[in-house]
């Protein structure tokens, strides 16, 4: 049974999603979804165990060997993210039981859970596969289910947000498929590792260059890197809080994984660094993203949009880590991916809890909630502190490694800019803290009580994880270091 773990990881949610349609009763579907996601989490733990003991696992789908059939190849990097995505989906699903009651009409709950499971399948599928075209198919599955989940939001602007995301997402996916086509044309194969062997001979040709260009633009569109991030704020702001929490924690991370896989496993860091000035481009775009998004986050009225812009800024940090191009830079990116998922899931779930009670995500309606919902608001504050990078929280760890990597690479002015950008984070987090604690209530919140227990537990699991992984970084940093070794091992990295 254990030999089938890689495919079980994706098949369990894949077959569970259509099965939800048979179950019909919303409550039953909800619990079924949690069980499925928990099973996926257990499988990824099993995979972690196997990969650590036996190294990279390869699974031939349909029994056909690699370049002909589709192959699943799981190494440290995949398992690290599989663990993250399945854990996040389990926690968010636990909070979903009560949260979507207030945000979705009763008859749409079954479809919401089905779309959620399909999105989970898509993300897990992208993470596990080693076939370039298979990535496109599962990318499309996760994208379509994301459009549905966003469009289920209560506000009418959710529809336009979902439509805009559909257009930009499809353009991104089509760019990716053009990239895959160009690579296929020059090498004749679709398997990532086969590509990695055959690309060096042809990588001087202009077709491979434009293939790399298209792939990068497609992935950056999915990643919401700075100039291509226009769809993210609206999509996260008007989607149901549960969808926002799940997407913020996982969707962009999977896109970053794709970028890492492309830059390090398929094209190799030498090609990326020498042929195109990718280091400078990523560094400039990352910094621009950080500053522009943080500044616009300060002026937001809707609290979800505020933290959505902060997500765009945090992605800028990850891209900056990649731009450094050294092993430590990659470790900084991987650590920040894990940490950012924790932070954002905690904050958005807490906001979901508040929206559950006051039915609005406007910042001014949060005034004075500090006294009425102490635990939920404390979660937002701690999440905010973690975003800033205050010691004892997870954010500090990723900021520490990022600055260390920057210094090691001699980019000390960039290090100063990164530290100054965390000041912008201070401004927009403290704006929320001022509204929540130090301003008298704008709407009557006398009868508002604490968020329901079924939401408080996941929120506080995430908050405690935020602090625990801030103190004991053996899991996150350990795994990231091993992943970085494995990625650099293949190509004897620049360092």
């Amino acid at each position, binding site marked *: 049974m254990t030999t089938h773990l890689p495919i079980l990881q994706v098949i369990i949610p894949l077959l569970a999603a259509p*099965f939800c349609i048979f179950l019909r009763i919303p409550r039953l579907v909800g619990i079924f979804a949690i069980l499925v996601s928990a099973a996926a989490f257990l499988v990824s733990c099993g995979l972690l165990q196997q990969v650590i003991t036996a190294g990279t696992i390869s699974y031939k789908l349909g029994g*056909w060997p690699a370049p002909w059939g589709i192959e699943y190849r799981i190494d440290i990097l995949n398992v690290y993210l599989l663990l993250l995505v399945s854990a996040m989906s389990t926690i968010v699903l636990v909070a979903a039981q009560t949260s979507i009651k207030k945000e979705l009409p009763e008859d749409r709950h079954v479809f919401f859970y089905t779309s959620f499971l399909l999105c989970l399948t898509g993300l897990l599928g992208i993470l596990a596969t080693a076939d370039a075209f298979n990535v496109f198919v599962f990318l499309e599955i996760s994208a379509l289910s994301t459009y549905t989940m966003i469009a289920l939001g209560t506000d009418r602007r959710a529809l336009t947000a979902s439509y805009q995301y559909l257009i930009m997402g499809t353009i991104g996916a089509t760019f990716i498929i053009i990239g895959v086509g160009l690579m296929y044309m020059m090498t004749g194969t679709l398997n990532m590792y086969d590509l990695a062997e055959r690309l060096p001979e042809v990588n001087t040709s202009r077709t491979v260059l434009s293939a790399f260009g298209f792939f990068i633009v497609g992935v950056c569109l999915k990643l919401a890197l700075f100039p291509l991030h226009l769809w993210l704020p609206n999509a996260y702001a008007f989607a149901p809080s549960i969808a926002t929490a799940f997407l913020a924690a996982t969707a962009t991370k999977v896109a970053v994984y794709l970028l890492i896989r492309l830059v390090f496993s398929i094209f190799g860091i030498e090609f990326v660094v020498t042929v195109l000035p990718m280091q400078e481009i990523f560094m400039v775009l990352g910094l621009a993203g950080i500053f522009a998004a943080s500044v616009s986050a300060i002026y937001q009225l809707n609290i979800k949009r505020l933290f959505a812009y902060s997500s765009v800024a945090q992605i800028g940090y990850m891209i900056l880590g990649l731009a450094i191009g050294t092993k430590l830079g990659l470790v900084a990116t991987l650590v920040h991916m894990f940490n950012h998922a924790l932070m954002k899931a905690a904050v958005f779930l807490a906001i979901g809890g508040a929206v559950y009670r006051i039915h609005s995500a406007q910042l001014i309606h949060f005034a004075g909630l500090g006294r009425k919902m102490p635990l939920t608001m404390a979660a937002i504050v701690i999440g905010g502190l973690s975003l800033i990078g205050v010691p004892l929280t997870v954010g500090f760890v990723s900021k520490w490694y990022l600055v260390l990597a920057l210094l090691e690479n001699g980019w000390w002015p960039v290090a100063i800019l990164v530290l100054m950008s965390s000041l912008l984070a201070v401004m927009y987090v403290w704006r929320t803290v001022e509204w929540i604690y130090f301003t008298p209530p704008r709407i009557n919140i006398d009868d508002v009580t604490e968020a329901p227990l079924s939401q408080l537990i996941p929120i506080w699991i995430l908050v405690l994880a935020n602090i625990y992984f801030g103190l004991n970084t053996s899991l996150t940093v350990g795994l990231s270091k091993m992943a970085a070794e494995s990625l650099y091992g293949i190509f004897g990295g620049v360092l």
Partner: protein
Amino acid sequence: MSDLFAVVMLSGIYSLISASLFLDLDAVDVAFTEASVGAGISTLLMLASLKLVSRYQKKTRYKPILAFFVVVTTGAMLIYGTLDMPHFGTADAPVHTHVAPRYLNESMGEIGVPNVVTSVLASYRGYDTLGETLVIFTAGIGVMALLMVSKQTKQESKKLIPADMQQQIILRIVAKMMIPLILMFALYVQFHGDYGPGGGFQAGVIFAAGIILYTMLFGLSTSQEVFKATTIELFTAAGVLLYGGVGVVCMLLGGNFLDYDFLKHDPVHGQHLGILLVELGVGITVASVMMIIFFKFTWRTVKHKYKK
């Protein structure tokens, strides 16, 4: 081009012409799918949605400069990319030398299906097709979630008999003759996929087209007696489960996921059975999803009529 009706019809013609062009490029399966899906269903869905949306586009000034700039840069990148490409139709391009020869040479021995595209589609890269069925299922779920219609609108609309379709005598008689043939042709395409162009997708779409023709002519409520929306929803899920189930059965019998060799004692027979079942799963899903999408769009028009 302010009349959207013309835009939709032209896009239908565009798909038809591209289907014929695919045929010329030896891509028979793709031509069949493009004709049935591109020209058929997508034009149909656009016309159905046009019924709900204002038909004439307001003459608004659009912003050409930004668009022009972005398009030109992408075009430049593309043209730049095409310079080193292997020439059109050359036999020694890497694409034909690395992975493809094995499909052409060994597929007869390993899978025994003359149509290599079906063998690659269902067996070598069977997992891609499972993913693709899931994409169709996701789209179905999305449309179902977005265009929900409450129970009571369904009850009220039963009393509503579509007046305009009553006197279309000629159409109804011809349709009565045509629909059974369409459905039979769909089944033919479904099971003929191994030997000639055809397969799950095309069959599903043709089957759905037949049913949609019936619904359009004889009214939604009459066709609901035959194809109740709730059962069709179950069928969308059944197709994907069938496909996945075949894969799981292969796992239980000892092979990897979707490895049909283990289905029967003799691997080639196993492949045949596997491909047959898998194509059936795809056919069911595609047919039921297309039907459900059309039903949801028509429910919306009924809902509007009922509200007025």
